[in-house]
């Protein structure tokens, strides 16, 4: 093969799925008087982190009600009962700490 000869090769990359945009929930006007769930994904001491965040809210935004909520099982498993609870009883959620 001549070093300057152009050759054709095949692309080794697989086929990506088509991506469709998903809707976001409407944002809140304010957090005052609202219930914010602090959702612990139970990975690498995330519970300790979210409890500190809960303490931050109590100190700086006492009008916000926070609920510390560990997911039911491991983060790899969907948790509809927890999500339903948050939808029914909460106004917003902070999930952490992901990686």
């Amino acid at each position, binding site marked *: 093969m001549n070093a300057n000869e152009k050759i054709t090769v095949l692309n*080794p990359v697989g086929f990506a799925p088509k991506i469709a945009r998903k809707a976001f929930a409407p944002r809140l006007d304010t957090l005052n008087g609202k219930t914010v769930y602090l959702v612990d994904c139970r990975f690498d001491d995330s519970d300790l982190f979210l409890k500190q*965040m809960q303490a931050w809210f109590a100190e700086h935004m006492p009008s916000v009600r926070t609920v510390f909520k560990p997911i039911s099982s491991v983060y790899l498993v969907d948790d509809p009962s927890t999500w339903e609870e*948050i939808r029914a009883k909460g106004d917003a959620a*902070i999930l952490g*700490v992901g990686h």
Partner: protein
Amino acid sequence: MTVEAKYGVPTVAMHTDKFDRVVRSVATVNGMPGLRQAFVPQPIMGKTAAQLRAYINGTDPITGRPVMQEVIEGLTQPFNESDLGPVEFDRSTPRLVEPDTAENLERLFLENRWTDMLPIVLPTEERVHAMLAGSRRKPDEIVGRMRSTHFREYWEYTVEKVAVNAVMAGARPAYFPVVLALAASCVTARGSSSSAVAGMSFVNGPIRDEIGMNAGTGALGPYNHANATIGRAYGLLSQNLQGGSIPGLSYMGNQGNNYNYNSLTFAENEERSPWEPFHVQHGFQPMDSAVSVFSSCRATAFTLGLREKHWREHCANMLRGMDPHTPPVLLLDPIAARQFIDRGGFTKKDALIDWLYSTAKMPAGEYWDYQLIQNYIYPRATFGEEPWASKLKAAPDELIPMFRREDIHVVVVGGETNGYWRIMGANYQKTVSIDEWR
């Protein structure tokens, strides 16, 4: 993303800064590029309450803005159109690469991270055509779907795409059914876990001899062309067919893993094994050819033989040295396999596995305190999943099994130059027929 999109609850996701690129990428491929995310320094693990509070009081290392301002605005600031991204986007993969010189193409493959950083064989049409002749399957037939981690999207691939990667790895057409079977497992050998995992695979049945695989001296590498290139092909096809394996973006293994160079691919030494072959244990006939696939391969322990007086204790020490989150897979030289029969009377492999299961124990308090057990097993135990829910009832000093019996495996490989044997920590995934891909 589920809470936001499916349940209609405004959310902010907290992450550590090392995962900036990867979590934004995951949000995008899930159709939510504007997902509200805030970052704190890595790590969270092992930090004191005061240190964690300092993270919260501090600034987001990605944006430089106060962390709690990011969080509160994430829940209260409306989205604008640019946050939302396109309504739909398609990422087509062209069949061919723009023609160029071999030197430039080799550079392009390297720059695009389509290689394992070692030289590759360029997949010309002629070479790919020759590879395809190694199977009766049609080039456009779908083989499977693969992804690098739980939250990423599955990518799809055809027989021809697998052939392209097999050529790049230097595999011969005769090996192609094995490579196709590995691809058909849909188990990635390039998982993106921060624990730096590798795949492990081994072949049983007549195809081992047909293509000259090595189950004896040097089987685990790098002394056999089929073992080396089939395993390399498994790695290359995994990274390319799943849509990439790029550090910081789609690969987060903290130290990397040298096993990834050929995914620990070998053949079982059925002829010198005192037990039935692995694939027969998993429902295949002795004359079937099959490949077995393991994931999460990281830890290794080894020793020489089994001493008469303390072999039980030595084995227990090795098992206790494994992280209890990943079960043991014993790779036994035939000499060591026969010693297990001589010393322990394990004429059946099942009897040896029973013994390993009952030997691998540790105090419950120590077990539950392992970080990976906390991350992956403890939540399942509290959810009521067995056998972990029952283990959770044990007193801290009570000895409990480190592993589930069904997760422990034994394979015979080696050339009897000595009775060395090792334990790999790895998760069995499946055994796939090779004959179906001939």
